[in-house]
């Protein structure tokens, strides 16, 4: 049923630390690996070995350059997957009831047997979290690895989403964001976690932690002043060239 359930007490989701993510794309690969072989339609690729290769992914890592008013630009790697929004616009637009939000834990899922592939849910999602698979023609999205997190056949440490389990930097955290005392909620409170596109009114469950402010490194090398390599005033031949070129019409002064 595409009517959204009343807000659940339990809100499972991810917390992604933009300070820690190194942009290695391991989460992208492990996500595709787990989700292409374990349930439903596989995540297909088209012309994978050509220059124009493309495929279906449930998790993608963007990279952004941020230029502060003062100081050097920063490069920030930005993983993005379904945010399992509390007010999920992708669910209510679905004409068949294939899209739904679970009442028990807030995970947004697609029942592929009911999906007609109209693509409307992908239109409604501001985050680009849903992709229509080009081979199977059904909508694919992050399931928060619902087939891992409750799976008692897996060792306990593996009962978390594949992306979280694989992240070598510890930039991804999984937990109950509906519980203010959970580790993830504490982390969000401590680090000032934020929502993406809050003006869209989707109330995402997933939160992002901002990069920590860059500190300014003090001069610690006492020998550095003696090693000053850059000649401020050119002497000799270079000095003469500098003067001659400057004196020429169009020379800088």
């Amino acid at each position, binding site marked *: 049923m595409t009517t959204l359930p009343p807000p659940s007490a339990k809100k499972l989701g991810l917390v992604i630390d933009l300070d820690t993510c190194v942009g290695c794309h391991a989460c992208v690969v492990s996500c595709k690996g787990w989700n292409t072989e374990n349930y439903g339609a596989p995540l297909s690729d088209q012309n994978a070995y050509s220059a124009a*290769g*493309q495929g279906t992914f449930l998790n993608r890592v*963007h990279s952004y350059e941020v*230029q502060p008013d003062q100081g050097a630009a920063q490069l920030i790697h930005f993983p993005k997957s379904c945010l399992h929004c509390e007010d999920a616009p992708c669910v209510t637009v679905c*004409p068949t009831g294939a899209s739904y939000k679970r009442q028990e834990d807030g995970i947004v899922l697609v029942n592929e047997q009911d999906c007609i592939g109209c693509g409307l849910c992908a239109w409604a999602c501001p*985050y680009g979290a849903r992709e*229509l698979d080009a081979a199977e023609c*059904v909508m694919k999205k992050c399931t928060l690895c619902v087939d891992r997190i409750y799976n008692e056949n897996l060792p306990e440490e593996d009962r978390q989403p594949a992306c979280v389990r694989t992240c070598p930097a510890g930039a991804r955290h999984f937990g109950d964001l509906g519980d203010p005392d959970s580790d993830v909620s504490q982390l969000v409170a401590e680090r000032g976690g934020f929502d993406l*596109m809050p003006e*869209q009114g989707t109330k995402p469950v997933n939160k992002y932690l901002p990069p920590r402010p860059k500190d300014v490194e003090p001069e610690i090398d006492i020998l550095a002043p003696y090693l000053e390599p850059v000649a401020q005033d050119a002497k000799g031949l270079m000095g003469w060239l500098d003067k001659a070129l400057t004196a020429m019409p169009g020379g800088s002064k």
Partner: protein
Amino acid sequence: MHPAPSVIIFNTFSGIGFGLLFFLGLGFPAPTGWVAFVFFAIAYIMAVGGLIASTFHLGHPERAIKAFSQWRTSWLSREGICAVAALIIMAIYGAGLVFFGTKLTILGWVGAVLSLGVVYTTSMIYAQMKTVPRWKHWSTPALFIDLSVAGGALLSGNIVIALIMLVIAGGMTAYYWATGDKRFAESGSNLANATGLGGIGSVRAFEPPHTGSNYLLKEFAFEVGRKHVQKLRIISMVFGFAIPFVLLLMVQASASHILALFAVISHIVGVLALRWLFFAQAEHVVGLYYGKR
């Protein structure tokens, strides 16, 4: 947004077809026998033809029956139900006129309301999309209904109403373009709050997540159609509204069916261009993440 031909054909022809059914249902005109048959045949070919075209963009059209179930929340579901109801009611009403020479007045009115209902529910599929600021506005349903009624008046031979509606629909189109151009900026969505990094400095998309393209870029970041916006706007204004208006004035003087046919063809050409722009110019906020619009 990607201007899928199937959806452009659907919006154009079903819009006009249901507009014609609207006037037939109201009883303007209320022909009987063969004349009624021709009117209803044209309306059904356009309305149903458009609906069939729209199923071509579905991944699994064989499951389309399931799309009638979620009318509580989904405008697409409501559209499907409305379309089936309108087509059934108008088929009964049309059969009365064609085969029995009987006008089931009340049934016609119900069919007329349902026919416009189809156009309204279609328009709300777009107007509900907060992710596409150009569409998220009351003028989207207003534009769809104006176009449908103008096209319906034109095809049903209600010349005076058609003349008035062409002016209204043309004006609405101009308003839609003029205000639509500003709506993305007004929506407040930008790369700064899409990434939440705006507090640090100015954000620029540095590297996309993949070397090739993907479903999202193909579906939402369609930039080709915007190259010729001004030309296409002139084409849709001239062919969609100005030429049919002049031709209709001549039809009123001469009662020529050929001129009326040219007016209809010109209108359809203009509306096709207009519907193309409706999609090609619509920018989805997800493009922000890719540094594209």
